[in-house]
């Protein structure tokens, strides 16, 4: 496709819109989850815009750097936010054929998320506090345990298209005539577990806790303040949003605009909002119902995810080929 091509220009515009939409919608999604959680526990919600107010407050504050930190500590929030924003360009939001799609397939995407985790662990360890170390160590453990399951899920999904490209996967899923895919059912179950583990949600990690000894994600960002903390928080919103988006793309792609015509795009937007809200509500319900797992139960949890993904993978060959 040529740069002067009008189709290219439309796609480019849509991609840019997608990116900003992702970055701006991510805090809203967290706000929605918070609202659902509050309503479910009989509290008055602070509103869906609360994460924005929190971010605004943080960005207005000064940065206080802990003693003995190197440039790494300051660079990590930018790195994390940057990588996640770039990842947003690979994941179809409205445009199922993002221009940068061919650059990265799902395996690269998982690699990018791992890079984010590694950077955060570096930032946490750079401050040299026991909590940072503790959080980083636990985060690496959870990540390391969840990654095999994640890859297995992606392979199961890829079996449909014979490709690990996100666009191809979605296109083949959209064009599939089967009403249900048993293999995807199992993959979905595994994905939900991986999603909870990777994003530090209950029952793995409690994003709302103030108990420094139990934290995972929060312990890693304990030393950050002001705008740097704001970026870390925003990154967490973005990561949650992207993980949900991947889930929607893989398991509920119906309604994604097959071509970029205005009616299809508008319908796609409404469907997407509906799906995100439904997923957010489901997440809030899970978080209200479950207590946090004892940390050494996490391997069992991720092993279950791996098992489910493997079953999905096998079922594809048994039932669907």
């Amino acid at each position, binding site marked *: 496709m040529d740069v002067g091509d009008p189709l290219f220009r439309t796609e480019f515009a849509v991609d840019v819109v997608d990116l900003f939409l992702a970055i701006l919608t991510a805090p809203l999604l967290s706000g929605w989850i918070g609202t659902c959680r509050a309503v479910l526990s*009989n509290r008055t919600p602070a509103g869906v815009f609360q994460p924005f107010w929190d971010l605004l407050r943080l960005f207005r504050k000064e940065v206080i750097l802990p003693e003995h930190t190197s440039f790494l500590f300051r660079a990590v929030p930018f790195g994390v936010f940057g990588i996640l924003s770039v990842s947003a360009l690979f994941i179809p939001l409205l445009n199922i054929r993002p221009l940068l799609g061919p650059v990265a397939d799902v395996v690269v995407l998982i690699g990018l998320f791992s890079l984010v985790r590694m950077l955060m662990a570096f930032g946490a360890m750079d401050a040299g506090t026991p909590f940072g170390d503790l959080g980083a160590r636990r985060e690496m453990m959870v990540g390391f345990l969840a990654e095999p399951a994640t890859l297995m899920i992606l392979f199961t999904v890829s079996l449909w298209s014979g490709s690990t490209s996100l666009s191809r996967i979605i296109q083949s899923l959209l064009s599939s005539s089967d009403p249900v895919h048993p293999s995807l059912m199992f993959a979905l179950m595994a994905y939900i577990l991986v999603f909870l583990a990777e994003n530090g949600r209950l029952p793995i990690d409690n994003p709302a806790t103030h108990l420094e*000894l139990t934290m995972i994600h929060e312990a890693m960002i304990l030393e950050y303040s002001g705008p740097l903390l704001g970026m870390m928080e925003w990154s967490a919103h973005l990561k949650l949003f992207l993980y949900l988006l991947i889930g929607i793309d893989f398991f509920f792609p119906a309604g994604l605009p097959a071509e970029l015509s205005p009616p299809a795009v508008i319908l796609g937007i409404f469907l997407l909002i509906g799906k995100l809200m439904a997923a957010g509500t489901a997440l809030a319900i899970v978080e209200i119902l479950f207590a946090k797992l*004892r940390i050494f139960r996490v391997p069992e949890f991720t092993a279950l995810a791996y098992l489910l993904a493997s079953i999905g993978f096998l079922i594809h060959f048994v039932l669907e080929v």
Partner: protein
Amino acid sequence: MDSSLPPVSPGGLCLIPLEEGIPRCFFPHENSATYLEHAADLKSTGGRFLGLWASASPFPRIYSSVLLKEGLILMVLSLGKDAAGDFVYPSLSRIFPSASRFERTVRDLFGFIPAGLEDQRPWVDHAHWSIPPLSVPPGTRISSQTSSMGRPDYPFVRVKGPGIHEIPVGPVHAGIIEPGHFRFQVLGEKILRVEERLGYAHKGVDGLFRGRTIMEGAKLAARISGDSTVAHSLAFAQAVEQALDFIPAAGVRFMRAFLLERERLMNHLGDLGAIGNDAGLAFALSQFGRLKEELLRKNHLHFGSRYLFDLVRPGGIAIFLGDPAIRDLLTEIARLLEEVLELQRIYDDHGGLQDRFQNTGILSPEIATRMGIGGVVGRASAQAWDLRSGHRCDPYHRFPPALALAHTGDVAARVRVRFLEIQESLFLSRALLEHFPENVIKEEFPINPDITEGIGIIEGFRGETVSWVRLSPGGIIQAAHHLDPSAILWPALEMAVPGNLVADFPLINKSFNLSYSGNDL
């Protein structure tokens, strides 16, 4: 003896059942040998050490309180200067291990030296004072000791070995809680040892009591630990009343017992919610939080104070309860009982919660017995001590609450004990309200002509809360001391934690829910 202690009859015969409280008696000792012998004797008869404190010149004495099933024994040891000009007394730490921190506190505050105490580290003194602050007359300026060298490090006990590292936590925490420092020795996620460093909330209560009137003292006692204001006020009132040989009317006793149960209720409700929340179940916090808040609002409506401050005073109570209020409180009790049972069912049926609670933070009954642990924590470790049952004191002997006992000593046991106590507390409150005698608010009590002493002991929501006062003629407090149960429970937490995961510590800590303020007097 230049001050008159209440009369003592030898051999524990003084523990005659009393109407107005737990039997309690003073045992003066003039020499160390009989003091140690008596302590060993009390230990062998199953006595539990509750705490130890001192009073300064002109009566340098050591007071150690030991609780027997029959009542409270206060051993009073008069001190004399030794050849070097120091006040030395024998340490009880070999008989009662929990005495160690109390004796360190006395050494920091008064400069009295416990002979034979192995732990030579300071406790409440964070290297701020050049001299023991209570060893000098009130009002003396004490210069700060801090030099350009900075404060010396507190020598924590360290565990050495490959892969073992230390995690310091606090005194400033990520949440808004009281200050305290915990030093963990961990191997990966496993805690090998935890040591507490407290005293950050030290506010010199013993010094503040000196020279105050009884009513000022009551106000101070109410503010020792905000969550047990009724327990401390009530213990103080009992102490003063014993010193003045005064027995409050039945209506006053009923009202006090009722307020004490209310305090227990709201704290247990708050604790249960917080324990659930620390296990990641936010639902628990909002539900129990709501129940507690409703109680607090009812408190405000009927008693004018959400946390029941200053309602119990020496000689009486500060409120009048009319029939409409009694009816309203009775309906509240019925509704609360229903809701708590519903929440208990949810707790019991929640697999994730039970998985976190069970076998976490076990304080074995053997250790609890050896350390003399009482209160909720003790009862969860099979220690059958509750001042409200087993004594003939009014009004409890009319409607004795059942002893809430569990045997496993884990977080689940402490949760279960709290649920049981809430129910018993509700039954007791209902009985008290239904049989409420005439409303008496306050009676005048006599003014003491001599120096007199008194002691009070109350089953607060955490455990036995003790107050001791010495009044000079005219009702001026010459010296006073309060014991919050937290002081003996903090070492028990250290015993319950090793072997658990670092991430489970907050849950265990919450299931104890000890007061920093009550400890750091």
